[in-house]
């Protein structure tokens, strides 16, 4: 009774937005669609929320077919689109009342579900939605998506452009909603948020690269990664890219993630090569792969 997609494809004229996508989200699961802009995440959301009809394939949400049973799905799900879609000219409270009313309920009836989110904006309930800050709009949109007590919640890039503090806070809210039994499908371009999901699908150019738990995806990374540091980042990247045994070079925070073509990597050899290149304060050590490493390897 979660979500199920089977061989879903959708094109816009010549552009193939998603191609032959299949995955299942279990009831009560927090499932992440992880991929950059243009990967096809929003198309998947629009198909599952019955706003778009797929060209091919079938999908069900909470047991209902996305084409045949679209009315039942619309009653059963909450959807927070990527773009702020509430009424800017209505106040905070008017927006919430509006959404409660069209779903045949009241704010009071389901208040417990939204309480810990809504209390943060309640002091401003008489303010027009258009005058709220980004973080507050996000909280109001989430409250409106929850007010009819949906069984499945769709969140399309809720944290894009949001600072790390507010992002952390938002994910804590999602975890609390999950505990209340709501199935959640969430998309994000921030790879670090993948680790917060039960399972994830890595998606790029309309195709799924991998589906698994974040831990399993990371553990399947085929190579050993080395953290390499030196005094001059730009020169270090250039030197590593020209090293004869290089497989990949990606800046990662204060270090560069380096992988080698050979089966047996020789640290001393790389060290002396970098010294010859004129770099100083050289630092090389093996490190663990993260989701971003895995994504980049799969997207190669």
């Amino acid at each position, binding site marked *: 009774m979660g979500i199920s997609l089977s061989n879903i494809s959708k094109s816009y004229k010549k552009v193939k937005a998603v191609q032959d996508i299949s995955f299942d989200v279990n009831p009560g699961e927090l499932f992440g669609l992880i991929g950059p*802009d243009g990967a096809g995440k929003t198309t998947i959301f629009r198909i599952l929320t019955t706003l778009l009809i797929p060209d091919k394939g079938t999908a069900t949400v909470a047991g209902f077919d996305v084409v045949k049973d679209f009315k039942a799905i619309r009653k059963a799900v909450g959807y927070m689109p990527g773009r702020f879609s509430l009424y800017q000219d209505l106040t905070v409270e008017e927006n919430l009342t509006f959404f409660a009313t069209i779903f045949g309920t009241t704010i009071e009836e389901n208040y417990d579900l939204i309480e810990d989110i809504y209390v943060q904006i309640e002091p401003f309930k008489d303010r027009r939605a258009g005058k709220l800050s980004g*973080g507050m709009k996000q909280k109001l949109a989430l409250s409106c998506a929850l007010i009819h007590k949906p069984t499945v919640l769709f969140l399309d890039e809720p944290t894009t*452009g949001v600072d790390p503090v507010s992002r952390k806070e938002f994910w804590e809210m999602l975890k609390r909603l999950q505990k209340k039994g709501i199935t959640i499908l969430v998309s994000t371009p921030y790879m670090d948020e993948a680790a917060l999901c039960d399972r994830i699908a890595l998606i790029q150019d309309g195709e799924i690269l991998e589906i698994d738990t974040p831990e399993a995806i990371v553990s399947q990374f085929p190579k050993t990664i080395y953290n390499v540091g030196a005094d001059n980042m730009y020169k270090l990247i250039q030197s590593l890219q020209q090293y004869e045994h290089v497989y990949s070079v*990606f800046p990662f*925070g204060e270090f560069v993630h380096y992988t080698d073509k050979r089966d047996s990597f020789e640290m001393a050899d790389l060290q002396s090569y970098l010294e010859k290149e004129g770099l100083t304060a050289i630092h090389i050590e093996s490190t663990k792969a993260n989701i971003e490493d895995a*994504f980049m390897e799969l997207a190669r």
Partner: protein
Amino acid sequence: MKEENVIEVNQLTKTFGDFTAVNTISFEVKKGEIFGFLGANGAGKTTAMKMLIGISKPCSGEATVAGFDVYSQPESIKKNIGYMSQKFALYDDLTVKENITFFGGIYGLPRKKIREKREHLISELGLENISNKLVGSLPLGWKQKLSFSVSLLHDPKIVFLDEPTGGVDPITRRQFWEMIYKAADQGTTIFVTTHYMDEAEYCDRVSIMVEGKIEALDTPKKLKEQFKVDSMNDVFLKLARIPSPTLPKGKGENADCN
């Protein structure tokens, strides 16, 4: 060595009615430096940046950018800086070539120079096969790389990048940073805002704004030492407290000091 500073900011302040968006901030940015300008949403970054690029007048304090005064010489500032953000980048319904030509013209470059720059830029980015395609049809990552190159067309002393990599795939995001390193290596000063904390580590120095004030400013390494944490993400989480639910008063409602 005062002439080495390309940005000098002293006690800069901007208020809207009784709301202080930017509160007496002071800092300098050196030539060729990659300067990260961080802060939570609503901390005042955009307001501060608008003053520095000459499109919003400060209420008090001083600032010079590329040697020009933000009060009296905003037009000179605009000619000597590059600017790129995700929101305003290139024209989707012009081709790659047309965009380059258009922005070259806006910056007042002579035709011959525009042609040279255009050929160079297209070959450097490997866009030969799509130079006559509409920019709107390009993947986001390519657009952003092209947009950055266009912001450097007139060889500005400083380029301001406002969340340049939001939503870009991880490989392109790194290629973009290699372009930033290259520009900085050639002496261009980079002033960049981002919500990716790994990118904060790529900066030479980082400032963190909290509720209108600069609460920390140093190299990423020293900031991590100072706050006794392992990553810039943790520095940020320690500093940029979860904002209390005070509303930024709608900018239209409260009077600008000017």
